C-alpha cells in the first residue's frame, strides 16, 4: 500500500482489449494516504457477508466435524479470497464504475485510492487466502478457492462480463463456490451434495441479478455493459427470470430428492422456492410502462436475498437435527 498522489494509473499488465472503457476515473486523487476503510470497501463487505454465510452453511452442513479453530480459519480464508477477488474486480472496472451512479462513489472511481494499490491489495489478499487454506486446511479446498478467485477476477470480470449478455449466468458460478469450499474444508472431497449447493446459487443468480438489472438498466446501458435487458430486451429477460425461477425450484429440491437432506430442508426448499416462482410470475409476464416504479421487480430482488439466507439456514438446521 502506498500513499495516493497524481493521476490514477491507466497501464495494466494484462493485454486484454477493453473497447468499452474510454474514460478515466476521477483525476482528483488526493495526496493523502488512503483510509483503511477504503481498502475495506474494496472487499465489497455486503457481498462478503453472503459469501461468509453460504460458506459457513456449507461447512456446517457437511458430514463430519472440523475443529472450531480450523473452521474459523477456513471461513476466514474464503472471505479473504472473496475480498481479494472483489478488489481485483474493482481495480479492473474502475473506469466502468465511474460511469454508474450505483458504483461511482467506490474508492477507485472517486479517487480516494490509487489503482495500483487496489491491484496489489487484491493480489495480496488472494494469495494469502490460498496460502492459508493450503497450509491450515486442505489442498483441494485451496485449489478450488484459487480457481474461484481466478474465475471471478479473470474469466468473469476481465473476459466475459464485457462481452456477453450471459455474463450474469457465468458470473453466478463465482458466487456459488463458497459453500462448495466450506464443504470440502470439512470432508476433503467433492461429492454430489456440495455440487448441488453450487448449482443452487448458480441458478439463483440470474433471476436475482436480472431483477435488479431491470430497474437499474439505464446505468448498465450507460456503462456499455451487455446486460441481458440491454441486449436481449426486457421481454426476453423477464421470460428468462421466470424460466430460471422454475429451474431453481427443481434444483433446490434435488438435495432432498437424492437423500442428502431430511424433511426440514425438503419442506423449506419447497415452500421457499414455490414463493420464488410465484413472485417471478408477474415479473416474467408483465411489461413495464413509462415511469414504472418496478415494484414487482424490487420485491423479487429483495425476496431473492431472503430466499438464499432462508434456504441455507434450513440446510444447516436440517443437518443439526439429523446429527
Amino acid at each position, binding site marked *: *500500500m502506498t500513499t495516493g498522489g497524481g493521476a490514477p494509473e491507466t497501464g495494466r499488465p494484462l493485454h486484454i482489449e477493453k473497447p468499452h472503457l474510454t474514460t478515466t476515473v476521477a483525476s482528483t486523487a488526493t*495526496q*493523502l*494516504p*488512503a*483510509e*483503511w476503510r477504503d481498502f475495506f470497501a474494496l472487499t465489497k463487505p455486503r457481498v462478503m457477508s453472503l459469501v461468509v454465510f453460504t460458506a459457513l452453511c456449507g461447512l456446517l452442513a457437511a458430514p463430519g466435524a472440523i*475443529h472450531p*479453530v*480450523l473452521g*474459523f*480459519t477456513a471461513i*476466514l480464508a474464503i472471505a479473504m479470497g472473496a475480498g481479494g477477488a472483489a478488489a481485483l474486480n474493482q481495480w479492473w472496472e474502475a473506469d466502468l464504475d465511474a460511469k454508474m451512479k450505483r458504483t461511482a462513489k467506490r474508492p477507485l472511481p472517486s479517487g480516494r485510492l490509487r489503482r495500483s494499490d487496489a491491484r496489489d491489495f487484491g493480489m495480496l489478499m488472494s494469495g494469502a487466502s490460498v496460502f492459508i487454506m493450503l497450509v*491450515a486446511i486442505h489442498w483441494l479446498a485451496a485449489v478450488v478457492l484459487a480457481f474461484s478467485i481466478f474465475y471471478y477476477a479473470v474469466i468473469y470480470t476481465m473476459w466475459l462480463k464485457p462481452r456477453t449478455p450471459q455474463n450474469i449466468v457465468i458470473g453466478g458460478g463465482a458466487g456459488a463456490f463458497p459453500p462448495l469450499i466450506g464443504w470440502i474444508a470439512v470432508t476433503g472431497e467433492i461429492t454430489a451434495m456440495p455440487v448441488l449447493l453450487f448449482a443452487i446459487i448458480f441458478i439463483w443468480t440470474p433471476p436475482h441479478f436480472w431483477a435488479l438489472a431491470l430497474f437499474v438498466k439505464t446505468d448498465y446501458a450507460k456503462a456499455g455493459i451487455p446486460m441481458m435487458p440491454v441486449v436481449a430486451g426486457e421481454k426476453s429477460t423477464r421470460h428468462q427470470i421466470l424460466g430460471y425461477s422454475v429451474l431453481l425450484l427443481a434444483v433446490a429440491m434435488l438435495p432432498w430428492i437424492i437423500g442428502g437432506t431430511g424433511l426440514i430442508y425438503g419442506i423449506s426448499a419447497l415452500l421457499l422456492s414455490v414463493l420464488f416462482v410465484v413472485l417471478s410470475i408477474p415479473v416474467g409476464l408483465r411489461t413495464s410502462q413509462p415511469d414504472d416504479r418496478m415494484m414487482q421487480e424490487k420485491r423479487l430482488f429483495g425476496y431473492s436475498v431472503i430466499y438464499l439466507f432462508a434456504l441455507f439456514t434450513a440446510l444447516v438446521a436440517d443437518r443439526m437435527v439429523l446429527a
Partner: protein
Amino acid sequence: MTPEEEKEFIRRRKNRNVVIGLILAGFVILFYAITIVRMGD
C-alpha cells in the same frame, strides 16, 4: 502540504498502521492456535 493536511496525513498513516498491526497480531495468534490444533491431530 499545509499544516492541516500534514495533520490529516499523520492521522491516516497512524490509523492504517494500527489496523495493519492488529491484523498481523491476529494472524500470529491464529497461526499459533492452528499449530496447537494440528499438533493434537
